């Protein structure tokens, strides 16, 4: 855009700096607070830059036996990755069928997929919870992901992407004797990679950040805590020492912090795929 004069420039920076100070203080507190001796935080104002730094809180947060973070980390990873893979597989197949395979049911099936997008998850959380409980898999990680293996949104997005694929190329491939699966795997998917990555990031984060469902599941089996529910449980158990709490939170935030700092373009693409062009 246009280059503004010196006065607006100063004002711009002033506004951004003020906003940054206010908005980023919690981030600073999270990251720095975990390195401070616990009584430094109990002062007003918190002595963020006085005193010595320590790794003790991180050790304490990682080792405390109440809400073990390592298994929670693994659970979160499991949830994020399996939901991502499941979404990719189910969505690719369904979108392919909806775009390239003619069938009288194509239209109604598409609308069915679309309709599921409108259902807020919380409105069916009760029947799903009762159902999962009745399966008797309380101790199994599968109970964390079962309801989330397919996504109407994923199907919809990939359908959009597949439709962009030139019909002529597809015909050429078929004339060459290329079967559906081979066409899908060797030609279509590589050609629509950006959309796939978008869906992957979106699905992963959806699983990674889930809170309501793991809260229910882990409430009857704490070995199924994800990082998100672990943070809540940690708050109840380490409420007395904010430094340990902050250290624990920093550990849980690392993956997403890295993603925001280094993977921004994938984030934006993932969440806005197709919507904002």
């Amino acid at each position, binding site marked *: *855009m246009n280059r503004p004069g010196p006065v607006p*420039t100063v004002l711009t*920076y002033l*506004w951004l700096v003020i*906003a940054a100070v206010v908005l*980023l203080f*919690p981030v600073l*507190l999270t990251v720095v*607070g975990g390195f401070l001796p616990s009584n430094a935080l109990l*002062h*007003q*104002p918190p002595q963020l830059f006085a005193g010595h730094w320590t790794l003790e809180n991180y050790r304490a947060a990682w080792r405390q036996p109440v809400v073990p973070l390592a298994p929670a980390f693994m659970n979160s990873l499991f949830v994020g990755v399996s939901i991502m893979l499941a979404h990719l597989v189910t969505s690719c197949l*369904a979108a392919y*069928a909806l775009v390239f395979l003619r069938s009288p*049911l*194509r239209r109604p099936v598409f609308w*069915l997929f679309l309709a*599921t997008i*409108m*259902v*807020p*998850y*919380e*409105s*069916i*959380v*009760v029947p799903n*919870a*009762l159902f999962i409980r009745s399966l008797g898999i309380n101790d199994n990680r599968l109970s964390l992901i079962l*309801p989330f293996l*397919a*996504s*109407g949104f994923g199907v*919809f997005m990939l359908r*959009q992407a597949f439709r*962009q*694929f030139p*019909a002529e*190329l597809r*015909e050429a491939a078929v004339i060459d004797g290329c079967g*559906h699966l081979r066409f899908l795997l060797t030609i279509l998917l590589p050609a629509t990679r950006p959309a796939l990555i978008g869906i992957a990031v*979106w699905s992963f*984060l959806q699983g990674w*950040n889930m*809170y309501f469902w793991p*809260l229910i599941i882990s409430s009857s089996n704490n070995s199924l805590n994800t990082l998100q529910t672990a943070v809540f449980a*940690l708050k109840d158990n380490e409420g007395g020492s*904010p430094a340990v*709490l902050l250290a624990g939170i920093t550990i849980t*935030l690392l993956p*997403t*912090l890295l993603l*925001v*700092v280094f993977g921004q373009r994938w*984030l*934006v693409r993932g*969440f*806005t795929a197709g919507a*904002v*062009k």
Partner: protein
Amino acid sequence: MTAPTLTATGVPAGDVHRPPGGIRRTARPARAREAALGLLFTLPGLAGLGVFVIFPLFQAVYLSTRGNDILGNPTRSVGLRHFHELLTPAFGTVLWQTLVFTVLVVVPGVLLPLSLAAPMTQRLPGMRIFRTAFALPFAYSVSAASVVWLIMLNPGVSPVNWVLGLVGLPAPNWTTEPGWAMATVVGVTVWMVSGFNLLVLAAGLAGVDEEVLEAARIDGATGPRQFVSIVLPLISPSIFFAVVTTTLTALQALGQVQIMTDGGPNGHTRTLVYSIFDNAFHNNNSNFGLASAQGLVLLVVGVLIAVVQFGVLERRVHYR
């Protein structure tokens, strides 16, 4: 982090024009085979959604008419009693608070990042760093954000209260005064969504053509006026997208309420989703019938939003 979990869909518009790439004349057996294959391909997705989205809808209706035994299994019919319970002033308050919460989150949750993203379009040094910095709250899951903010506002240690004290303001009872509790929960949510919305809006702004702006300048439009009259319409899809996802995030918010105020004080931060959680899973309440009935209310709200969303997309939003 604000993962828009449901209708954060894109755009159905433009969807209709392009004919699907197909092959013209095919022999009948081949066609049957194709249909069968199509069914097979859609089956995993349909099965997953059928079992865990579509079927539960019917089961929710069934559950909403049931009482349960001591272990929470649905048993006897209670007719429409749970729906009668929805007609009470108490539930009206819950709905009202949900609306208030949503509106208070959406408006600043979109305007704040817009006010940050707009000046950042100027070609000035350091803007990249600012963008990354402002996006950082997006890295916070709802529980992490809630707990960090609880520490920020904890009367014993609050740095926020200390700052207020410096300028001579009394520290509010952040989570224990009815009005402030709502404001606190809203504030944390706005903080959380601002990171994501900033990325969305910045991406939208980055897509605005230089020439359009150039033309606008020749016309004499400058500064804020140029922004409102020319740039805003151009990024209306981004703004609309931000509004929709933020609305859904707010509507579905649970963690910030449950962790920060637990619906209190005295129910003043109870929202619809919190209420569902509370009736079904909190305190060993196990009132699955009532929770299901409230879930159906949420379903209606969700569908309404989707209808509005599609309606607006069809008509209003300006596309390039």
